[in-house]
């Protein structure tokens, strides 16, 4: 009989006790603000008791992961002061002692560790599922080994210098070809280097036009 009374008292008192533990602006409580419509637009779901249950389960999961124990349960997460904005306060009680609250710092660390999983459970992001007081994690900067602009610069300057050298070489070749062409013409019309052979000696001589009977000159 006494046991039944005690059980009844406990069942009646537990929610009341839970309510006193969770207060807005409590030192160990965290405020959560959710913006479903901003995140999902037309595909926004309604925030109801089932979603609240999911939240409590996710938070229990986060606490389990942080402490690496399997003792946390949905009952350990107590929520209060829900508004239409969809914001509420929650506190986490210790699984051993349901009147003792887990300090805020530890809750924050747990949330930070599993932030990505919590966000994904609700299809939200750091900005739309806000834990007030816990800043969103900054994306780690991606530092490539060579800055990408240097690669593009290298390609462009390589192509340009190759082009310059090609053009310079081609104009040099053109000039040489022209000079060679002119030299051949010159030999045709002016002095011709004749090689004379006398007594098996090679003599270099210049053909003297003055002594030729050349039809090229105009006849008087």
């Amino acid at each position, binding site marked *: 009989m006494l046991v039944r009374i005690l059980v009844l008292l406990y069942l009646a008192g537990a929610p009341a006790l839970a309510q006193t533990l969770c207060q807005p602006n409590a030192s160990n409580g965290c405020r959560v603000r959710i913006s479903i419509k*901003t995140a999902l637009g037309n595909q926004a779901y309604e925030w109801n008791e089932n979603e609240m249950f999911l939240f409590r389960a996710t938070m229990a999961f986060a606490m389990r992961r942080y402490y690496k124990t399997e003792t946390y349960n949905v009952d350990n997460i107590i929520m209060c002061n829900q508004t*239409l*904005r969809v914001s509420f306060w929650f506190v986490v009680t210790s699984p051993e002692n349901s009147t003792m609250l887990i300090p805020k710092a530890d809750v924050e660390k747990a949330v930070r560790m599993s932030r990505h999983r919590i966000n994904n459970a609700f299809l939200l992001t750091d900005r739309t599922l806000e834990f007030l007081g816990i800043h969103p994690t900054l994306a780690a*900067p991606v530092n490539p080994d060579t800055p990408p*602009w240097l690669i593009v*610069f290298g390609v*462009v*300057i390589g192509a340009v210098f190759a082009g310059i050298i090609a053009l310079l070489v081609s104009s040099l070749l053109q000039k040489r070809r022209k000079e060679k062409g002119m030299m051949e013409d010159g030999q045709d019309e002016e002095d011709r280097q004749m090689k004379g052979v006398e007594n098996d000696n090679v003599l270099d001589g210049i053909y003297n036009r003055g002594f030729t009977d050349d039809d090229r000159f105009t006849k008087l």
Partner: protein
Amino acid sequence: MRLQLPNPGLEDRILSHEDLDKLETEEAGSGDRPKWDNKTQYMLTCVGFCVGLGNVWRFPYLCQSHGGGAFMIPFLILLVLEGVPLLHLEFAIGQRLRKGSLGVWSTIHPYLAGVGIASMFVSLMISLYYNTIMAWVMWYLFNSFQETLPWSQCPLNYNLTGLVSECEQSSPVDYFWYRETLNTTPDIGENGGLQWWMVLCLISAWAVLYICIIRGIETTGKAVYVTSTLPYVVLSIFLIRGLTLKGSLSGVVFLFTPDLTELTNPTTWLDAGAQVFYSFSIAFGGLISFSSYNSVHNNCEQDAVIISAVNGFTSVYAATVIYTIIGFRATERFDNCLGGNILTLLNTFDLPEGNVTENNYDQVLQSLNGTHPDIIQGLNLKTCDLNTFLSEGVEGTGLAFIVFTEAITKMPVSPVWSVLFFIMLFCLGLSSMFGNIEGVLVPLQDLGVFPKSWPKEATTGTTCVLCCIAGLIFVQGSGNYWLSLFDSFAGSIPLLIIAFCEMVGVVYLYGIDRFNEDIKFMIGHKPNLFWQITWRFVSPAIMFVIFVFYFITKVTETLLYKTWNPESENFPTLEEKPYPAWIYVIIFILAGIPSLAVPGTALYKCLRRKRDTKAEQQELKTVSNHIDVNDKAQDGKSHT
């Protein structure tokens, strides 16, 4: 009898019409003078020279700040009265006298050689800083080949706890431009050293220019097929992209909404005149050179009209495209501002989402202000006005590197748009550089600075290398301030003086009658009354008025320049500082030397001629007095 100043010896210095015709037929194959492969190359080169960065980033700003659609009126009027006649004059005189700018003015009258020298000096100064802008464009282009553009987010600070404070206070695009690109110092006196990444970009800009001008118009003529046409393609792509973005039409409407009261403001007319003048790249000497490579009977009148029309159309087209993107950016900012305010209200009053939207924001705010005025006060809500965002009109480098790049980061697939935009800017600038460099190279050749034995590749190469080295001023920490200094002073007053002297020289020294005859010989009919009136009275008068007003404005205003100073009080706003005293010397060199070269050379030549004639006269006296060329004396001698 028309007013004609005495000009002895003109006939001896110019080729007669018969000689020109003979030259035309003889020079058909090869010749000393380079030639355009076909008319298209010539037109594209001239269009490319005229259409430059100013069409994209100066004209839209002027249009929007001087009454939108109403600005078209002074712009078009001055285009017809000032731009077209000057253009026709330069084309005709170049085609007739078949020389570069220095040669043309020396031929018309030896004392006018100063005009050619001034043109060369101005072209040189402008080439130096213009290619630095190309270097900046290349830097942004190289950085666009990344998935997240580097100017879309602030970098993290040293211990990875937050964003860099300079970036957080201003914006990622500002930070990228002032810190990561320019690494600007707070004062023009502190030079901050050479920024190595900018030096690399400067070298690449000059290298690309060199490869395009390596053999003169032979290579330039081929390059312009790409550099002059690509900007139009990209502008059209951006127009289509822009029109599909939210808020673009509000930008275009804002740009073209006429405010006819602006027409009574003289600054509007002055700015329109100055814009037409600078946009046509007149008085650089490049256009004279380009048209001197034409055949003698090319229809220069038609060319001038076509190129003016294309230039005007491009200005308007580019303004439309730019303002679709600016409209999009302004709407985006407005939406963010309003969204931020709405979120604040929702959060403070714990209202469900969707209760306060853009439509009922004002009513809700009013009702809340009635019930909880103190809370509303404490929130410090920003006032969001679309027109304020739209009229944050920016021009120049601010438009291209800050406003436009920010807008690009908000578009999907940003790297593609960024690459396209900077390629377009690069092509616009490169085609203008062709003309600038032509205005430097041809006078240098005419002056005989380079030995005749040097091939064309060597002369262009040397010029590019020397200009690149001189351009290192602009890639130091304070380079941006030097660039604005050069922009304001090297390219404004001297050009007005040169253009005025050009008109007076051709009309009154060369002789308008002779000029009319020349044009009749070249294109078949005498220029009609419109050209006569504009050449002789209207255009020189407009030049003179603009020059006087510009001069007075520049001389009377205290010279301030805007600096990026992270330590200043209202930080993201640029701090205005006065120039230090030694800058005035530099300003005098930039603006004064080309302007004074015109009378200075005339004086020098005059004095030298007087000295030469005196020496000749003295020699004559000596010869006739001391040597007897009398036959009688010799007869006498032979008898003895």
